[in-house]
C-alpha cells in the first residue's frame, strides 16, 4: 500500500535583488533556461491563462493554469506533470516575493498537495527546489548560473 500525503514542501531563500527582477527571472525563458534544468516557460501570466514548462527537447514537462498573478509579489500556478503514464494529482506552486530590505527579497516557494500524492514523490521537489532556487539566486547576484545537472526523475510513479 503506497503511503499517501498532503504534506507541502516549502523553501525560503533570500536574494539581493529587486522584486521585479525576481519576478522576471521566474517568468521568462531567457532566465529559466539558465537555472531551471534548461526548461523554458510559456504564458502571459494572467489569472486564468494556461502556462507550460517545456523541456530542452521541446516536449512539455509541466502544464497548468495561472491561479493568481500579482506581479511582482505573488504568483500561484497549478502544476500537472505531463510526461508520466499514470495521471498524477495536480499540485499548486506558489511563489511569494517579499521585499524585506533595500535590494533584498525573501522568496518563498510552496509546493502544495491538496489532493494526496504518494509520499515518495515529495522527494523530487525536496531535491529539486533547492537546486533550482540556489541557481536562480546565483544568476541574479553574480550574473552566472550554477552548473547543476538535471536530476533523474523519480523511478516509481
Amino acid at each position: 500500500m503506497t503511503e499517501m500525503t498532503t504534506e507541502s514542501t516549502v523553501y525560503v531563500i533570500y536574494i539581493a535583488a529587486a522584486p521585479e527582477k525576481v519576478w522576471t527571472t521566474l517568468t521568462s525563458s531567457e532566465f529559466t533556461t539558465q537555472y531551471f534544468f534548461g526548461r523554458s516557460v510559456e504564458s502571459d501570466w494572467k489569472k486564468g491563462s494556461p502556462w507550460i514548462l517545456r523541456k530542452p527537447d521541446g516536449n512539455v514537462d509541466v502544464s497548468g493554469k495561472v491561479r493568481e498573478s500579482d506581479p511582482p509579489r505573488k504568483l500561484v500556478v497549478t502544476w500537472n506533470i505531463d510526461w508520466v503514464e499514470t495521471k498524477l494529482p495536480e499540485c499548486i506552486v506558489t511563489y511569494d516575493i517579499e521585499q524585506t530590505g533595500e535590494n533584498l527579497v525573501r522568496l518563498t516557494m510552496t509546493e502544495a498537495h491538496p489532493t494526496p500524492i504518494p509520499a515518495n514523490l515529495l522527494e523530487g521537489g525536496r531535491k529539486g527546489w533547492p537546486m533550482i532556487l540556489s541557481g536562480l539566486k546565483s544568476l541574479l547576484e553574480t550574473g552566472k548560473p550554477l552548473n547543476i545537472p538535471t536530476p533523474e526523475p523519480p523511478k516509481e510513479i
Partner: protein
Amino acid sequence: MAASTFVYSIYIRTTPEKLWDALTKPEFTRTYWCECWPDSTWEKGASWKLMIPDGRVGDSGEIVEIDKPRKLVVTWRNEFRPELHTEGYSRCTYELEAQGDMTKLIVKHEIDVEKSKLIEAVSGGWPAILSSLKSLLETGDALEATKHWPKDK
C-alpha cells in the same frame, strides 16, 4: 526521525574547504551571522558555543562528530531565551558535498520535543543566515539583513 526537524539544502559555488572555513571561523561568521562567532577547539567531545557580539553566550553544546570538510555534528542548546533553553539540547548536522564547482550544504537541525519552539525559531533563521553565507562566498558581500546583531534583542 526526531519529533521536530528542520532540513535545509543550498548549493554554493565554492569548495568544501572554503565553505567549512566560512562556517567555523569567526572572521567569516561575524560578517554574515549577525556578528556572532563560534568558540570551540573543534575536536570531538570539545565544547562549542555560539557567542553573541555583546559577550553573552547565544547557544552552547559540544562537538559530537567532526570530519573536516565533510561533516560536523554539534549538540545545541539555546542559552539566552528561557522558553527555548528549557527544551534542552538539539542536534545540528552540517554536511558538505562537493558537486563539480559547487558544494551542496545540508543543515539538519532536530530535537526530540514535539512542536519545538527552538526548531521553529531556527527554521526562520537558517534560510536567512545560509542565504547570506552563499552571497558572501559568491559575491564577496553578505546580505545586509544579517550583517549585524538586531538592535532590539
